[in-house]
Protein backbone atom coordinates (compact mmCIF):
# COMPACT_ATOMS: atom_id res chain seq x y z
CA UNK A 1 0.00 0.00 0.00
CA UNK A 2 1.31 3.41 -0.91
CA UNK A 3 1.66 5.88 1.88
CA UNK A 4 -1.02 8.53 1.91
CA UNK A 5 1.49 11.13 3.00
CA UNK A 6 3.41 10.57 -0.15
CA UNK A 7 2.73 12.53 -3.27
CA UNK A 8 4.40 12.77 -6.57
CA UNK A 9 4.27 15.76 -8.82
CA UNK A 10 4.71 14.24 -12.20
CA UNK A 11 5.85 16.00 -15.31
CA UNK A 12 6.19 19.40 -13.75
CA UNK A 13 7.42 21.60 -16.49
CA UNK A 14 8.81 25.02 -16.90
CA UNK A 15 6.12 27.45 -17.97
CA UNK A 16 3.87 24.85 -19.48
CA UNK A 17 1.17 27.46 -19.89
CA UNK A 18 3.16 29.03 -22.69
CA UNK A 19 3.06 25.97 -24.94
CA UNK A 20 1.95 26.76 -28.45
CA UNK A 21 3.73 30.08 -28.77
CA UNK A 22 6.30 30.36 -31.53
CA UNK A 23 9.93 30.44 -30.42
CA UNK A 24 11.91 33.57 -31.16
CA UNK A 25 14.30 33.50 -34.10
CA UNK A 26 17.95 32.79 -33.46
CA UNK A 27 18.83 36.03 -35.24
CA UNK A 28 16.70 38.04 -32.83
CA UNK A 29 18.20 36.43 -29.74
CA UNK A 30 21.72 36.63 -31.17
CA UNK A 31 21.56 40.41 -30.73
CA UNK A 32 21.06 40.08 -26.97
CA UNK A 33 23.91 39.97 -24.47
CA UNK A 34 24.58 36.57 -22.89
CA UNK A 35 24.72 36.63 -19.10
CA UNK A 36 26.39 33.56 -17.65
CA UNK A 37 25.48 32.23 -14.20
CA UNK A 38 26.36 33.43 -11.55
CA UNK A 39 26.65 36.86 -13.15
CA UNK A 40 23.76 39.20 -12.43
CA UNK A 41 22.12 40.95 -15.38
CA UNK A 42 22.32 44.72 -15.11
CA UNK A 43 19.47 46.01 -17.27
CA UNK A 44 17.58 45.32 -20.44
CA UNK A 45 16.85 42.04 -22.15
CA UNK A 46 19.37 39.25 -22.28
CA UNK A 47 19.96 35.54 -22.75
CA UNK A 48 20.83 33.65 -19.58
CA UNK A 49 23.36 30.85 -19.82
CA UNK A 50 23.79 28.06 -17.29
CA UNK A 51 27.19 26.58 -18.09
CA UNK A 52 27.80 22.83 -18.06
CA UNK A 53 30.01 21.55 -15.30
CA UNK A 54 29.74 24.58 -13.04
CA UNK A 55 28.06 24.16 -9.65
CA UNK A 56 24.66 25.86 -9.63
CA UNK A 57 23.00 26.51 -6.31
CA UNK A 58 19.69 24.84 -5.52
CA UNK A 59 17.91 26.16 -2.45
CA UNK A 60 15.38 23.80 -0.90
CA UNK A 61 12.93 25.27 1.61
CA UNK A 62 10.47 23.22 3.64
CA UNK A 63 8.23 25.18 5.98
CA UNK A 64 4.63 25.58 7.10
CA UNK A 65 2.54 25.56 10.24
CA UNK A 66 2.95 21.79 10.74
CA UNK A 67 6.67 22.26 11.29
CA UNK A 68 8.39 23.88 14.28
CA UNK A 69 11.68 23.69 12.49
CA UNK A 70 11.77 23.58 8.74
CA UNK A 71 14.50 23.10 6.23
CA UNK A 72 16.54 25.74 4.45
CA UNK A 73 19.25 23.88 2.66
CA UNK A 74 21.36 24.90 -0.28
CA UNK A 75 22.97 22.25 -2.41
CA UNK A 76 24.90 22.48 -5.63
CA UNK A 77 24.38 20.59 -8.83
CA UNK A 78 26.13 20.76 -12.16
CA UNK A 79 24.52 20.58 -15.56
CA UNK A 80 25.61 17.96 -18.04
CA UNK A 81 25.21 20.43 -20.95
CA UNK A 82 25.02 24.17 -21.37
CA UNK A 83 21.51 25.52 -21.02
CA UNK A 84 20.42 28.87 -22.47
CA UNK A 85 17.25 30.55 -21.27
CA UNK A 86 15.26 33.48 -22.58
CA UNK A 87 11.91 34.08 -20.95
CA UNK A 88 9.92 30.87 -21.57
CA UNK A 89 12.36 29.55 -24.17
CA UNK A 90 15.35 27.26 -23.78
CA UNK A 91 18.21 26.10 -25.92
CA UNK A 92 21.29 23.92 -25.59
CA UNK A 93 23.37 25.79 -28.15
CA UNK A 94 22.02 29.33 -28.02
CA UNK A 95 20.78 29.05 -31.60
CA UNK A 96 17.93 26.56 -31.72
CA UNK A 97 15.17 27.49 -29.29
CA UNK A 98 12.16 25.56 -28.06
CA UNK A 99 9.61 26.05 -25.33
CA UNK A 100 11.39 25.32 -22.04
CA UNK A 101 9.01 22.56 -21.01
CA UNK A 102 9.90 20.66 -24.18
CA UNK A 103 13.57 20.68 -23.29
CA UNK A 104 13.51 20.31 -19.51
CA UNK A 105 11.23 17.96 -17.58
CA UNK A 106 10.93 18.37 -13.82
CA UNK A 107 9.57 15.75 -11.44
CA UNK A 108 9.29 16.23 -7.70
CA UNK A 109 8.54 13.31 -5.41
CA UNK A 110 7.78 14.03 -1.77
CA UNK A 111 7.31 11.40 0.92
CA UNK A 112 6.70 12.49 4.49
CA UNK A 113 7.15 10.03 7.38
CA UNK A 114 3.92 8.10 7.65
CA UNK A 115 2.17 4.97 8.82
CA UNK A 116 3.55 2.97 5.94
CA UNK A 117 6.95 4.63 5.96
CA UNK A 118 7.86 5.72 9.51
CA UNK A 119 11.46 6.36 8.47
CA UNK A 120 12.98 9.52 7.03
CA UNK A 121 11.05 11.82 4.78
CA UNK A 122 12.30 11.99 1.24
CA UNK A 123 12.33 14.67 -1.41
CA UNK A 124 13.55 13.63 -4.80
CA UNK A 125 13.88 16.26 -7.50
CA UNK A 126 14.48 14.83 -10.95
CA UNK A 127 15.35 17.17 -13.81
CA UNK A 128 15.61 15.45 -17.16
CA UNK A 129 16.67 16.57 -20.58
CA UNK A 130 13.76 15.55 -22.73
CA UNK A 131 14.97 13.42 -25.60
CA UNK A 132 13.48 14.03 -29.02
CA UNK A 133 12.59 17.63 -28.28
CA UNK A 134 13.75 18.71 -31.71
CA UNK A 135 16.64 20.75 -30.42
CA UNK A 136 19.97 20.63 -32.10
CA UNK A 137 22.49 18.26 -30.56
Amino acid sequence: MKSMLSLSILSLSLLSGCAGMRPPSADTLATLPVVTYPETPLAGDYVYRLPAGQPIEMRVLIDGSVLAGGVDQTVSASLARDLYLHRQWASEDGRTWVAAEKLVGVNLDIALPSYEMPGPGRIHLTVDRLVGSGTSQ
Partner: protein
Amino acid sequence: MNGRGEAARSLKFRFATAALAGSLAACTAPGPAPDATIATLPVVQVGATPSSDGDYVVFFPAGFSFPVELDASGTLFAAETRVETRATLARDLYVYRYWASHDGATWKPSHELLGVKFDGGLDVKGLKVRISVDDGE
Protein backbone atom coordinates in the same frame (compact mmCIF):
# COMPACT_ATOMS: atom_id res chain seq x y z
CA MET B 1 12.59 51.46 -12.09
CA ASN B 2 15.84 49.95 -10.98
CA GLY B 3 17.40 48.23 -13.96
CA ARG B 4 18.91 45.40 -11.97
CA GLY B 5 15.65 44.66 -10.21
CA GLU B 6 13.72 44.72 -13.45
CA ALA B 7 16.17 42.34 -15.04
CA ALA B 8 16.06 39.97 -12.08
CA ARG B 9 12.27 39.90 -12.15
CA SER B 10 12.17 39.16 -15.84
CA LEU B 11 14.34 36.10 -15.30
CA LYS B 12 11.87 34.00 -13.41
CA PHE B 13 11.40 30.55 -14.79
CA ARG B 14 8.78 29.09 -12.54
CA PHE B 15 7.68 25.51 -12.33
CA ALA B 16 4.10 24.92 -13.30
CA THR B 17 2.15 23.53 -10.36
CA ALA B 18 -1.03 22.51 -12.12
CA ALA B 19 -0.17 18.86 -11.60
CA LEU B 20 -0.19 19.24 -7.81
CA ALA B 21 -3.96 19.22 -7.41
CA GLY B 22 -4.25 16.03 -9.38
CA SER B 23 -1.55 14.40 -7.31
CA LEU B 24 -3.30 15.23 -4.07
CA ALA B 25 -6.62 14.07 -5.40
CA ALA B 26 -5.04 10.70 -6.04
CA CYS B 27 -4.40 10.47 -2.29
CA THR B 28 -8.07 10.63 -1.42
CA ALA B 29 -8.94 8.24 1.39
CA PRO B 30 -11.48 5.52 0.56
CA GLY B 31 -13.97 6.99 3.01
CA PRO B 32 -14.44 8.38 6.50
CA ALA B 33 -11.91 7.33 9.10
CA PRO B 34 -12.93 4.14 10.93
CA ASP B 35 -12.96 5.89 14.32
CA ALA B 36 -14.27 2.89 16.26
CA THR B 37 -11.57 0.63 14.86
CA ILE B 38 -8.80 3.15 15.38
CA ALA B 39 -9.82 3.63 19.02
CA THR B 40 -9.07 -0.04 19.72
CA LEU B 41 -5.58 -0.01 18.20
CA PRO B 42 -2.34 0.37 20.14
CA VAL B 43 -0.44 3.62 19.66
CA VAL B 44 3.22 3.11 18.79
CA GLN B 45 5.58 6.08 18.96
CA VAL B 46 7.73 6.45 15.89
CA GLY B 47 11.00 4.61 16.38
CA ALA B 48 9.51 2.11 18.84
CA THR B 49 8.87 -1.51 17.94
CA PRO B 50 5.21 -2.62 17.83
CA SER B 51 4.49 -5.17 20.56
CA SER B 52 2.51 -7.38 18.21
CA ASP B 53 2.12 -8.09 14.54
CA GLY B 54 -1.27 -6.45 14.41
CA ASP B 55 -2.36 -3.05 13.22
CA TYR B 56 -1.42 0.09 15.12
CA VAL B 57 -1.45 3.89 15.08
CA VAL B 58 1.88 5.66 14.60
CA PHE B 59 2.46 8.62 16.90
CA PHE B 60 4.83 11.46 15.99
CA PRO B 61 5.18 13.74 19.07
CA ALA B 62 5.53 17.52 18.77
CA GLY B 63 9.21 18.36 18.63
CA PHE B 64 10.00 15.12 16.87
CA SER B 65 12.86 15.79 14.52
CA PHE B 66 12.84 13.59 11.49
CA PRO B 67 15.46 13.26 8.81
CA VAL B 68 14.68 14.47 5.33
CA GLU B 69 16.72 13.19 2.42
CA LEU B 70 17.12 15.61 -0.46
CA ASP B 71 18.06 13.97 -3.72
CA ALA B 72 18.51 15.78 -7.03
CA SER B 73 19.14 13.73 -10.12
CA GLY B 74 18.19 13.45 -13.76
CA THR B 75 19.80 13.56 -17.16
CA LEU B 76 20.09 17.34 -17.09
CA PHE B 77 22.52 17.07 -14.18
CA ALA B 78 26.11 15.93 -14.55
CA ALA B 79 25.86 13.97 -11.30
CA GLU B 80 23.39 13.07 -8.61
CA THR B 81 23.38 15.27 -5.51
CA ARG B 82 22.15 13.94 -2.18
CA VAL B 83 22.12 15.58 1.24
CA GLU B 84 20.31 14.82 4.47
CA THR B 85 18.77 17.43 6.72
CA ARG B 86 16.10 17.49 9.44
CA ALA B 87 12.67 19.00 10.04
CA THR B 88 10.77 19.25 13.34
CA LEU B 89 7.06 18.82 13.98
CA ALA B 90 5.20 21.68 15.67
CA ARG B 91 2.27 19.54 16.87
CA ASP B 92 1.54 15.96 17.81
CA LEU B 93 0.64 13.88 14.81
CA TYR B 94 -1.09 10.50 14.75
CA VAL B 95 -1.19 8.55 11.52
CA TYR B 96 -3.20 5.47 10.60
CA ARG B 97 -3.21 4.35 6.98
CA TYR B 98 -4.97 7.08 4.96
CA TRP B 99 -5.94 9.16 7.98
CA ALA B 100 -4.18 11.56 10.33
CA SER B 101 -5.01 13.34 13.57
CA HIS B 102 -3.46 15.88 15.92
CA ASP B 103 -5.14 14.54 19.07
CA GLY B 104 -5.62 10.85 18.31
CA ALA B 105 -9.37 11.25 18.55
CA THR B 106 -10.48 13.36 15.58
CA TRP B 107 -9.34 11.92 12.30
CA LYS B 108 -9.22 13.33 8.80
CA PRO B 109 -7.84 12.11 5.50
CA SER B 110 -4.11 12.88 5.61
CA HIS B 111 -4.23 15.17 2.60
CA GLU B 112 -6.90 17.26 4.33
CA LEU B 113 -5.08 17.53 7.66
CA LEU B 114 -1.73 18.26 6.03
CA GLY B 115 -1.88 20.64 3.09
CA VAL B 116 1.24 20.33 0.96
CA LYS B 117 2.06 23.10 -1.49
CA PHE B 118 4.90 23.29 -3.93
CA ASP B 119 6.51 26.27 -5.56
CA GLY B 120 9.73 26.53 -7.44
CA GLY B 121 11.61 28.27 -10.13
CA LEU B 122 14.88 29.50 -11.46
CA ASP B 123 16.30 32.97 -11.04
CA VAL B 124 19.70 34.57 -11.08
CA LYS B 125 20.52 32.94 -7.73
CA GLY B 126 19.91 29.48 -9.12
CA LEU B 127 17.17 26.94 -8.64
CA LYS B 128 14.73 27.28 -5.76
CA VAL B 129 12.28 24.65 -4.51
CA ARG B 130 9.84 25.50 -1.73
CA ILE B 131 7.56 22.96 -0.05
CA SER B 132 5.05 24.21 2.51
CA VAL B 133 3.25 21.80 4.85
CA ASP B 134 0.36 23.56 6.58
CA ASP B 135 -2.43 22.52 8.87
CA GLY B 136 -5.55 21.99 6.80
CA GLU B 137 -7.78 22.42 9.87
